[in-house]
């Protein structure tokens, strides 16, 4: 069977504030042999500003891209940004289920869209199509001192009717990928809490407070790193972390990295290759402290043996006590 080819929709954030997400995803896709091509002449996905004003117009913006992809003969588009993802999924859902809506959208397009392209987040592609087993096998380095809080953000899995992926209230796909990398995952209650999203511009204070809650919960849960899958979440938690500290009197210093960057680190890539230098709160120490899988396994083995030996000693001691 020919290898599945995905259309990769980069989206505007990934060209700007989140280049490191784009960079690291490409590294990880290549490392795992995921075949992807980019549509030419892609345009705005129709997210936030458009869909708050006009649903047909927003869907048309999304469908324009989908129709380009359809004409490339591809049926799955993958994207990193949850906003792009939901813009595509919503357009697809509404057009598939409502004939008049579809007509209205198509009226605005040069090239009619026939609803043949399904959107999947890069997380979903890695989790479902590549699979945990393949990810596990590709791991070369273990970040043994990381305690990760997986933060999905509010829109990736919701509403479930449209998202059709993972659990809308307690998603676990990213948790499982992190575990597959051999990294400890914290029990984090605010996986889906709102970070404040794009309100950072009009209502900075509110966003600072909301993001603070997320970080505080992660720290409370014992995490020393927050793993994200959304450019906007990353920006609010990382870029604004200092702002949060200043406005709310907190004192956070916790790296916020993309799950693809984390995968890259576990696959042995350099911080530079993964755009780790783009982070505001540095995560470089995790790159330095990682050890090779082999070393890790040896360490674990040694620990195991030490435990056994201790048990043995204890047994002998208590045994001696029993028969003086």
């Amino acid at each position, binding site marked *: 069977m020919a290898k599945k080819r995905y259309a990769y929709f980069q989206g505007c954030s990934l060209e700007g504030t989140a280049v490191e997400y784009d960079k690291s995803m490409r590294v990880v896709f290549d490392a795992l042999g995921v075949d992807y091509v980019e549509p030419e002449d892609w345009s705005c996905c129709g997210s936030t500003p458009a869909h708050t004003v006009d649903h047909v117009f927003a869907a048309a913006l999304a469908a324009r891209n989908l129709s380009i992809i359809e004409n490339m003969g591809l049926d799955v588009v993958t994207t990193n940004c949850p906003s792009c993802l939901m813009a595509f999924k919503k357009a697809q859902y509404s057009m598939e289920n409502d004939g008049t809506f579809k007509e209205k959208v198509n009226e605005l397009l040069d090239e009619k869209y026939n609803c043949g392209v399904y959107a999947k987040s890069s997380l979903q592609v890695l989790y479902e199509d590549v699979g945990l087993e393949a990810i596990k096998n590709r791991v070369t380095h273990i970040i043994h001192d990381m305690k990760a809080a997986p933060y999905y953000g509010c829109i990736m899995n919701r509403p479930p009717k449209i998202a059709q992926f993972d659990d809308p209230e307690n998603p676990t796909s990213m948790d499982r990928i992190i575990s597959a990398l051999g990294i400890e995952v914290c029990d984090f209650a*605010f996986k889906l809490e709102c970070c404040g999203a794009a309100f950072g511009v009009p209502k900075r204070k509110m966003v600072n407070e909301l993001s603070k809650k997320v970080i505080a919960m992660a720290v409370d849960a014992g995490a020393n790193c927050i793993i994200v899958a959304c450019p906007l979440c990353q920006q609010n938690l990382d870029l604004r972390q200092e702002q949060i500290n200043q406005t709310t009197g907190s004192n956070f210093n916790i790296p916020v990295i993309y799950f693809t960057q984390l995968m890259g680190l576990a696959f042995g890539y350099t911080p530079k290759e993964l755009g780790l230098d783009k982070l505001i709160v540095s995560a470089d120490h995790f790159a330095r402290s990682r050890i090779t899988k082999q070393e890790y396994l040896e360490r674990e083995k040694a620990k195991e043996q030490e435990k056994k030996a201790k048990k043995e000693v204890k047994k002998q001691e208590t045994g001696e006590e029993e028969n003086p």
Partner: protein
Amino acid sequence: MRVGVFICHCGNNIAGTVDVKAVAEEIRKIPGVAHATTYMYTCSEPGQDEIKEAIKKYNLNRIVVAACSPRMHELTFRRTIEKAGLNKYYFEMANIREHISWVGENKEANTKKAIDVITMAVAKVMQDKPLFSSSFKINKRVLVIGGGVAGMQAALDCGDGGLEVVLVEKSPSVGGMMSRLDKTFPTIDCSICILGPKMVDVAQHEKIKLYAYSEIEDIKGYVGNYQIKIRKKATYVDWTKCTGCGACMEKCPSRNAYDYFNFGVAPTRAINIPFPQAIPKKAKIDPNYCRQFTKGKCGVCAKICPTKAINYEMQDEIVTEDVGAIIVASGYSLLDIERLPEYGGGRFPDVISGIQYERLLNASGPTAGHILRPSDNTEPKTVVFVACAGSRDKSIGVPYCSNFCCMYIAKQAILTKDHIPDSQSYVFYMDIRSPGKGYDEFTRRAQEDYGVKYIRGRVSRIYPKGKKMVVRGADTLLGTQVEVEADLVVLGTAVLSNPDAARLAEKLHISYDTFGFYVESHPKLRPVETNTSGVFLAGACQGPKDIPASVGQGSAAASKVLALFSKDMLESDPAVAKVNINKCVGCLKCVRTCPFQAIKENQLRDGRIVADVIETVCAGCGVCTSTCPCGAIQLQHFTDNQILAEVNALCQG
């Protein structure tokens, strides 16, 4: 042939959108119609009298009433013309209300349609044949399905009325949901103290035969003569020997069995007696947990039992009972808290359901009546109750109100204060529904005397923070978001029908609504009857209902059965299928399609095989008539000729 047609105004119900006078004029022109008139309320006494007088005056021999649905008044008018000396099947009803005046606004179109419909009825009535009922003996025993408070009330009332009662209960003990409750609103009297004596009465009543841990396998027959197959499920304990001493339960090494009675608040043993007041108080093995079944070895209880009651080889047993009427009182079930993931149902041990909390409050529950939260067995100081957890929520598939959660939440909040005086309870609610006698006073008492804080708004999320559960919701009266840090959260979960409700309904041939609750014959006037004669409803199987309403319905259903059984003979409906043996080729297709097993094979004297309808069993559904390749089987009162006459009348009009 002299047909009389009576067209009803039904006040303004019909006359408002149908020109009844014009209709009468048009109908009068039909050949064979000797008299056509209109009347304000045909079903009233003077209305019926007018029909009787007209029959004499105009020498009428066929009657059509154009009014409401035949489900409403067909029987009434049949009786009227019978009193006037006509065969009661020389009667047709044309439905010009539900089918015309109530659904169409265009008077002209309505009038035309009414003329069509009545013309059809006139054509049919001219083809009608006189039919005669035969009568048959009633078996004056009654089956009660479900031994909750409604079923027990019905059984006791029937028994006290002198009827023999067969009571079938699915679980190992009677008592239903009420036996799990601690106290009951609005009087805060102890649930088991008022229920226990009823349970004992059921066990000791000489007229009541109790099948516990049994289910209905199959129902055959018709009102007056049902044959019931009952499956007695294997308990692996010989109940004739078991004394209920409980020695087995103490010694059973399988300590992690799911406790159905306590809704999983704590585990139980693989062999158990569900609760101290259980009736019957007998032990039962759960083979999903018993080591003898899961691992093939153990046998501890068999060794320990002083009366040698344990029998691992026991099989289900099928028994048959004959009865004449059935009361269904199979109760309800509750929404699984796992269906509420935003509240962490099933994920966080300190988020529990109302019924689980009831068990924590109960002196014979797993915590001996001390409120201890599941995660760490400590006493909670802040308890949050969430009303409408799943109810009135279309996304859950429960658009309806669960009826009694508002009330039991107020009760549980009061009891919390009684148990833990320095505790504080909060209730998140949409609106407080407390319309019963003394109910509103009760919910006020919770707020005013017990200091329960009521917050009007929905909870959006519950999440753990250290040892606390943070309940976040809206306070819609203050217009703010609120967060309450709770030690324990109790969800007032939605009331659902039983998972097997539809299956039971199909066995009984009764209808159920979209949600699986059984449908009464009339929502106001026939609340405990069903549309299947001989089958009655009681309690929460018909819809969410509290104890007073369930008990009331139990007694009502019993009185209906007693009234039915006050006669010795019942009249059969002659509108049933009939085989023309001259046309029948004996293929017996009808025997296989009849859903009521009402057709049997019959050998004629010349050896020829034909089909034969058992008149009393036939429900008159007509399935056989469309199956028969020869047109040999005809439904009386709905024969091919009668229906074709209607079609012809319509097409010619």
